[in-house]
């Protein structure tokens, strides 16, 4: 049960990191793409942030799938 709790915490951390990266992608993507917010010459092009955003979405998806499987196991262990 302790092992599952550790894995649960680790998965929540993975999902949170994915969400944080997605937030960074939106912020930086908007800044470099539209220049609506502070435009930074050092920021990466929009396609870079789109790639990072897609990877983040896949990470969040994988995190949730693992979390669902873990919820099922926790249901059995009680």
């Amino acid at each position, binding site marked *: 049960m*302790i*092992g599952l709790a*550790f*894995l649960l*915490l*680790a998965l*929540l951390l993975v*999902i*949170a990191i994915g*969400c*944080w990266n*997605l*937030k960074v992608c*939106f*912020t930086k993507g*908007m800044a470099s793409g539209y220049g609506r*917010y502070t435009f930074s010459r050092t920021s990466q092009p929009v396609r870079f942030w789109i790639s990072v955003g897609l990877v983040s*979405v896949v990470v*969040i*998806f994988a995190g*949730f*799938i*693992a*979390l*669902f*499987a873990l*919820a*099922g*196991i*926790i*249901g*059995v*262990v*009680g």
Partner: protein
Amino acid sequence: MFDPVGVFAKQFTPVEGGYLYYPSKRGGGKLVTADEYEHLAEGWRKVAGRRGTWKIVGVVALAIFVWTVLSKSLSLPEWSDSIIIAACVTGISAWLLWASLAPRRLVRDRPAIAPPRPVSEVKRQSRALVNWRFISFALLFSGIAFLGTLNAPQRDLKSWCLLIGSGAMFGLYIWIAIQKYRDRQ
């Protein structure tokens, strides 16, 4: 690698008149009718199936996008982003746990029709559900985190937490792997 729908279904043992479900480690088995089982499985499939999972990811991505636009427009402080992300992850996890405990809520007031299982049997069953790929994933994940933090140049509270947490998880999963290997014999 992970099969949420299959793992959910393994909680139920077919018996005469429906399925046997053990709501806790120490409690007896309770009867769930075939119709109720179908209803529970369908509910879980909607939440944890491929389509359900993508729906959740979409909602999370949309929520983060809306929040990003709002926080930039209103010039909100950066710490508010952390709070929103923590609230998002906690809220979804709480909803997920609520959904996974649906069978338990269903049989809460029902009498047990089978005696409680021996603790060793429950442990063996739970280890059987955690497949080798799952264990490999946990070992790889915690091993990388542990070795990565082991060589950290500076030790602050965060790196100590990571070191102890990942080390404990790594050790535990080595133990689980040994136990699972012994179950085979």
